[in-house]
């Protein structure tokens, strides 16, 4: 029983990080209909920017914010100058996936070339621990859960309560129609990629904080649980991705607790493949939101 509770506790902690990343991934996908595999390496980039800053004595949470902004900017450039032109020319979907996989590999090895292949760490975080319902969580884990919740709430309010959010949703659901209503869809795309890149960078730093040590494979390893969460909740749908993050996080920790810890990732892999093959619209499918993403 204790094992179960602990697994669920850790699951929520890792689920919060997964959700951060998955929501960003979902926003990108909803806006541009591109499966961006480079996202994983951008997360790694965020973690290494965080490392450079914390090494220079910057507070870890400020580093998280800075890494978010930098990765957001990189992400906008990546979309505007590489992906969007390819999509406009009518490059086939799998060619675009190959471009994003290649760009991810390039970025990953550029990071290795500069930072080296050995494991890195942000060093000891504050030692305080919290006991919640029999689960021991470190202060930074709790902070990340809170941060994730706040960012999710913020995104929710942005999407539902502001003109910008409405313009984003309009662009995501029908670009041409949105354009003819006077929405500057290119600028809205840029903003969406900025936001999702920020979530990506923040998730990278958050992940580096929660895992004791990390190396250049951080993002690519974590990408699959994130895509699994995004697909589980219905790809392109931020709320689904939040829930998906929790489900994937808890399921992975349960698998790690009751079987071989190495199977932690396999659970996420399995969820993703099964979902893609059986319910590519997400668990809740069309009932959850307007279905516009499936070709």
């Amino acid at each position, binding site marked *: 029983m204790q094992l179960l509770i602990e697994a669920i506790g850790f699951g929520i902690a890792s689920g919060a990080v997964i959700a951060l990343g998955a929501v960003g991934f979902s926003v990108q996908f909803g806006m541009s209909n*591109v*499966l961006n*595999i480079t996202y994983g390496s951008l997360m790694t980039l965020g973690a290494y920017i965080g490392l450079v800053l914390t090494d220079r004595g910057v507070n870890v949470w400020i580093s998280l914010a800075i890494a978010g902004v930098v990765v957001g900017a990189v992400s906008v450039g990546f979309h505007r100058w*590489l992906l969007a032109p*390819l999509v406009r020319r009518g*490059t*086939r*979907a*799998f*060619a*675009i*996936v*190959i*471009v994003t*996989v*290649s*760009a*991810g*590999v*390039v970025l*990953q*090895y*550029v990071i*290795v*070339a500069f930072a*080296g*292949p050995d494991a890195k760490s942000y060093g000891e975080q504050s030692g305080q621990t919290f006991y919640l319902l029999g689960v021991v969580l470190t202060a930074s884990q709790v902070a990340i859960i809170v941060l994730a919740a706040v960012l999710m709430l913020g995104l929710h309010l942005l999407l539902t309560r502001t003109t910008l959010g409405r313009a984003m949703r309009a662009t995501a659901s029908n670009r041409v129609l949105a354009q003819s209503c006077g929405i500057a869809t290119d600028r809205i795309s840029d903003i969406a990629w900025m936001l999702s890149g920020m979530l990506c960078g923040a998730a990278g730093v958050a992940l580096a904080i929660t895992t004791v040590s990390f190396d250049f494979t951080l993002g690519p390893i974590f990408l*699959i649980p994130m*895509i699994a969460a995004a697909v589980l909740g219905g790809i392109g749908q931020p709320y689904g991705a939040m829930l998906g993050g929790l489900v994937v996080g808890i399921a992975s920790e349960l698998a790690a607790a009751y079987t*071989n810890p*190495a*199977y932690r*990732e*396999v659970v996420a*892999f*399995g969820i*993703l*493949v099964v979902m*893609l*093959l059986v319910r*590519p619209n997400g668990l809740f499918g069309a009932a959850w939101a307007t279905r516009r993403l*499936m*070709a």
Partner: protein
Amino acid sequence: MGGWEYYLIVLLVYLGTDLLAAWGLNLEFGVTGVANLAYIVTIAAGAYTYAICTLGPPAATGNFQQYVGGFYLPFPVAVLAGVLAGAVVGILIGLTGLKRLRQDYQAIAMLVVSLMAATVVMADTPFLNGNAGLGLIPAPFSDQDPEIQRWLYVGIVAVACVVGYLLLRRFTTGPIGRTLRAVRDDEYAAAAIGKDIVVLRLVVQAAGGALGGASGALLAAFIGGWSPGAWAYVETLALLTAVIVGGMGSDRGVSIGTFVIAILVLQGVQFLPQISFRIGLREDLGWIVLGTVTILFIWFRPQGILPERRPKYGGSS
């Protein structure tokens, strides 16, 4: 035997095995349109199968490495077993590609299959010796003088390439080739005129997987070892780059692409001056160049160096 002669042999064996693999991938990806990002798993299946078929039972070498089975089969039989394993794995991978998914979803599903296979093999040590991989895999003609043995091996790889190319041409030319291209270009139209898409796809997956299995078996026998590091998902990217650079769907184009990528680029970076003291920097550079080349080709010349020749049909259009 001089160092350069040995290097030449290594290059020839690599080129031969890479050609087999690139042809197989081109058959699946270029000719039939299945974006198989898990292709490297068929190569791994061939390599592991060859290893198990030649190493003998684990107890014979004092259990220093663990694996299932273990036989002393002669070289040709073991390679054939590898080919067969590649074909079976190819079909299994192909099953995930049957569902009418968006192409990009399919590609991701296959990528995940590749990652999952690697994770399971690494986690489950008794299966195929986990992360450490298998070593001491016997090569043929080990009773010969090493120099003669190596050149004989180059001959075997060459023969395998000829056989592989003949098999490939069976699929890419003539009626079957035209049918497969029709499936790639318009699946529904092909189905409407009575082509059995499912069977066609699985046959191609089997053929592509068989080529991959042959490549893996021959490579493992030459290197003498095989571990998860040798079949990371990025290795599929190297083959995919060869296909894209050479020209998707074009047999000769892909052969040129394989030479350019596997020999000129990936070996070329080895000759760069030592930039820093860190070992492995040049390999990193290889991947950076490879990814960049892929992107540049998709951007500037998606049809590749030697594009597939579009057949011209008579009649008005």
